[in-house]
């Protein structure tokens, strides 16, 4: 599906395999370079999401309505944005591994779909649905609020889409598998050791509220930046 190509982009940052153990380059097919626009996307998407997540309100698990009633608009904005950023992160990770060879890269690519689908679905319900219900409770007569608060609370414990539900676990596991497999794939093509370490550490993004989510996204952006910076510039072709 994603055939490695050797397209040459004049303004690109060549991502080439670094020397392997003993200074011998790993014997792999050349990969397509990231253009500057791609590189900007790969770094800016996680950083922009990280900035958004800094505004994620803190939620007490046993009092969701009480935690959110005064911050419901912020909560909804953060989660509407997060919905878009989940898709963008799936795209970013796919760009990162699309031309890498091997089983690990294939596993990473395969895990991106379930991440976007299930983590996005979970985030939609737990973020946007909860926000809509809190908004309704805020507009309801005071006498109804305890019952509405209970309804909001029971949603968090739902086995399908609740806080620790089937959908949440599948989505989170998919991201963890995708980034660890990407880390392994990069290690196998001889990327600097920090790149797979940072990529692997970005698994913590599954717990997206600050500080963990933004830190995980910063790891991801740093891995990409390092990949671009530590890669030797393409040697001039002999005349």
């Amino acid at each position: 599906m994603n055939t490695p190509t050797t397209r040459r982009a004049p303004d690109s940052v060549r991502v080439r395999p670094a020397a392997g153990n003993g200074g011998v380059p790993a014997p792999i097919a050349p990969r397509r370079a990231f253009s500057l626009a791609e590189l900007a996307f790969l770094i800016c998407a996680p950083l922009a999401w990280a900035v958004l997540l800094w505004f994620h309100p803190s939620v007490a698990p046993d009092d969701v309505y009480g935690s959110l009633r005064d911050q419901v608009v912020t909560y909804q904005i953060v989660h509407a944005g997060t919905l878009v950023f989940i898709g963008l992160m799936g795209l970013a990770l796919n760009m990162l591994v699309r031309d890498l060879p091997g089983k690990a890269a294939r596993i990473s690519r395969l895990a991106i779909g379930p991440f976007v689908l299930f983590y996005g679905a979970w985030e939609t319900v737990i973020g946007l649905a909860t926000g809509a219900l809190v908004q309704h409770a805020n507009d309801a007569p005071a006498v109804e609020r305890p019952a509405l608060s209970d309804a909001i609370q029971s949603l968090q414990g739902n086995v399908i889409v609740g806080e620790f539900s089937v959908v949440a676990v599948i989505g989170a596991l998919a991201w963890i598998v995708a980034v660890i497999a990407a880390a392994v794939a990069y290690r196998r093509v001889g990327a600097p050791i920090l790149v797979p370490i940072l990529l692997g550490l970005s698994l913590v993004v599954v717990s997206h509220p600050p500080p963990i989510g933004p830190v995980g996204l910063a790891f991801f952006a740093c891995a990409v930046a390092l990949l671009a910076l530590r890669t030797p510039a393409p040697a001039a072709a002999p005349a």
Partner: protein
Amino acid sequence: MNKPIAQSEPATVSTEGVAADRGNPSRVTAQSRGFSPPELAFLIGVPLLWAVLLLFHPGGEGTEIYLDAQDKVTPFLVVHIGMMIFIPLMAVAVLLLLRGVEGTAARVSRIALVPFVVFYSAWEVLQGIGVGILVNELKGLPQADQALREDLVQDFAEHVLIGPFGVFVSIGSIGLIVAAIAAGVALYRHAGAPVSVPVLLGISGMLITVHPPPYGPTGLGLFIVAVVLFTRSRSHAGEIAPPRQPSPA
């Protein structure tokens, strides 16, 4: 994203004909690889299975959602959890249909699939799974009286983001309609599809966005017909296409 790959597959459904660009007959587009039997099964099976699933979609006017859904929570959830899977699969089907097809219309279609998958899925998750689970949870809350339950579910389902004409469904539906129409135009202009293919794809996109029966299943049926017509036209083109002359050295 999906680059034409020059590879021969003996098991394909013979679509190796060269498609002339209708907008510019002198230009010959890149050949799109034929569909293998598993790919064809996917292109037909996904909309067919989705259509069958949608036949079980609980009905209702949408004015008393709690009352309509309270006794049908399980089918409501099963249909909408299934839909969560079928929405991205339909996007993959359209991408597969456009594989190797170049041009602006194909590019527009591929791009429009993104908002369809992201926003239509989000809307579907909230309106389908969210409402189903909310109804289910409210049934287990004795402290919530009937009027409160009905108001909460109705208000939730009519929220500006989630409602039937809300932000998410509007963006998602426009995404699918644009993707379907652009896919049809791309197949017609660059892949030799008959004119019925863009017409059917356009209508199917509009009907699928209104997914409960009869609209959704009908739209998915039209999509299948479009796939069959396109495949047949490509097979026919492959049979009558003159053998390609070797280019002069």
